[in-house]
């Protein structure tokens, strides 16, 4: 039997066993997001406007990642709002980065894989580079927004006497912790994803000049830096939104959270 299917079945049962209904929702979310990425690839292949397709499907992916991960509607609404704004900023930044960096397409390092393939395919690979940068950071942005918002709601629930200033101070303390661990997650994830490329660069003794200019490596570093910026902005904005909502609505904010 196919090893990946076996592992996917194991994942499914572990999710149900450990997280119950929540786990089932997470599994469905993962499958749905996989399908959305398929849709994205198909639409780009059919040469729909890449900016429009990316913007719309990024919203869909964020919605799936956030609304299928928790039960608390206000927490999810604030996280979703935050993620949308942050991803909009990052998408613009990705377009600028691609414009100045020209990070598109393949390089001589890919020769083996490209053997026998036609490269004159009439799709602008510059757009694809932008898409890769935007899609890569979606998960990290949503995760950071959910983590800080959920934690702050926890604080409001647990401390009936908390003032706006108190909440603000808590937001900063918790935000700093979340930032540290979330940046590490992204950092290790990117290292793990790019191990073969890094070994390649070392083994073939690339000069320091190439290490800070070569297309393939810079594409990965840029994606990682955009992701880290995304995490930071996400925590910043979500804290501000929670504190701001608390200032306007007071404790009524948490009444409807547990559906």
């Amino acid at each position, binding site marked *: *039997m196919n*090893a*990946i299917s*076996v*592992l996917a079945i*194991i*994942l499914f049962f572990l999710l149900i066993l*450990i997280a119950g209904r*929540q*786990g089932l*929702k997470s599994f469905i*979310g*993962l499958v749905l997001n996989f399908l959305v990425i398929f849709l994205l*690839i198909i639409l780009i*292949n059919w040469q729909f406007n890449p900016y429009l397709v990316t913007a719309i499907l990024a919203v869909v*992916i964020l919605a799936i*990642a956030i609304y299928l*991960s928790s039960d608390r509607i206000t927490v999810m609404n604030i996280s979703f709002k935050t993620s949308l704004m942050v991803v909009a900023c990052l998408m613009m930044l990705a377009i600028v980065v691609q414009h100045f*960096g*020209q990070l*598109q*397409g*393949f390089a001589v*390092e*890919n020769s083996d*894989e490209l053997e026998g*393939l*036609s*490269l*004159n*395919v*009439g*799709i602008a*690979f510059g757009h694809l580079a932008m898409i*890769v940068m935007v899609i890569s950071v979606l*998960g990290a942005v*949503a*995760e950071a927004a*959910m*983590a800080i918002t*959920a934690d702050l709601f926890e604080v409001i629930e647990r401390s009936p006497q908390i003032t706006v200033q108190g909440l603000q101070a808590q937001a900063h303390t918790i935000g700093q912790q979340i930032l540290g*661990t979330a*940046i590490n*997650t992204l950092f*290790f*994830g990117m*290292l793990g*994803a790019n*191990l*073969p490329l*890094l*070994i390649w660069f*070392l*083994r*073939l003794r690339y*000069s320091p*000049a*190439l290490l800070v*200019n070569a297309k393939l490596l*810079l594409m990965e570093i840029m994606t990682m830096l955009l992701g880290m910026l995304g995490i930071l902005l996400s925590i910043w904005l979500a804290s501000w939104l929670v504190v701001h909502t608390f200032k306007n609505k007071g404790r009524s904010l948490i009444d409807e959270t547990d559906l």
Partner: protein
Amino acid sequence: MKKISKWLILGLLLILTWVLVEHDSFLYQQPVGLVTATKTLSSSDVTDEHGNVDDVHIQQVQIKFLNRSGQIKLENQYTDSQSLSEHYQVGNQVLLTKRSGSWQVVSLKRDSLLAVLLVLLIYLLVVYLRPARASWLLLSMLVNIIIFITALYLDVHIKNINVVALFTITAALLAGISLLMVLGKNRQALITWLATILSTSLALGIMMLVLNLTHHEGVHFETMSYVTQVPAAVFYAQAVIGVLGAVMDESSDIVAGLFGLRRESDQHRFHDYWQGGLSVGREILGTLINVLFMIFIAETIPMVILMLRNNNNWSYILDQIMNLGILQSVVSAIGIVLAVPITSLITAQLLTRGQKYERH
């Protein structure tokens, strides 16, 4: 006023960085040039065997050397898709080399963009975290990068080194150092580290077991890009490092939550901690799985589209291009799920150890 000046400083800093690094060609040993003029010599439509239409252009590029005197002209062929070729424009800076008598562009010069983005990130980190804490975070990342590069060096320079063992030890070390620097030298860091290592090992153990039992069916290590050594070993190493970050994130959240619970009251029983840990874990597990999934899948998009355009069918593409990305996502997800009970169990056990004797 203070806020405005903060952003003004950032703007100036970014411009200054850009200008400075654009003028750093004297640091380069190899020739660096500036594109001063381009001229399109010819353009033509090409249709490949799959019916894709692309435009091929030949441009003449005039380049002025920046770190030595003189200028050259060279011809460059590019397609509109720019899949493997590049379209040079006036103002681009390029690294050059001379091969068998004629000049060639090695790479576009992108270091100023890298510097600007780094400065932007570091500045915002300093503003949000305050200088002391930001430098601590940056220092821990720097230490991690140095350890990682050392591991890569060992891998490249020692023959027959056990790659899986090397990167497992590296991963354990990286996790230890990150936790020490974020949490300090205390019991909380130790428990988080233990839980991280255990969950990661268990997830990888399950992966290896399944791979052995199914005889690697449907897994194509040979499709890995940039292969310079045995791909299966490199994949295990990749999986260890990728899983570790997410598991560490989750474990530290659970452990921090349970230590908070103990601060409220030290009367809690094993059961309270166990349930508390599970509920914190369930909340964050879904979004964490998505983080790694997005990273692993997004990377494959350009190649998938190239394959589609070359009339390959989806099942072949899933098998050849997305295969390892999907495997890595699933294994990471298993690690993330397993971390919830493992971390809750270890923390609950250690926090309630000795309690029994006090009660009776």
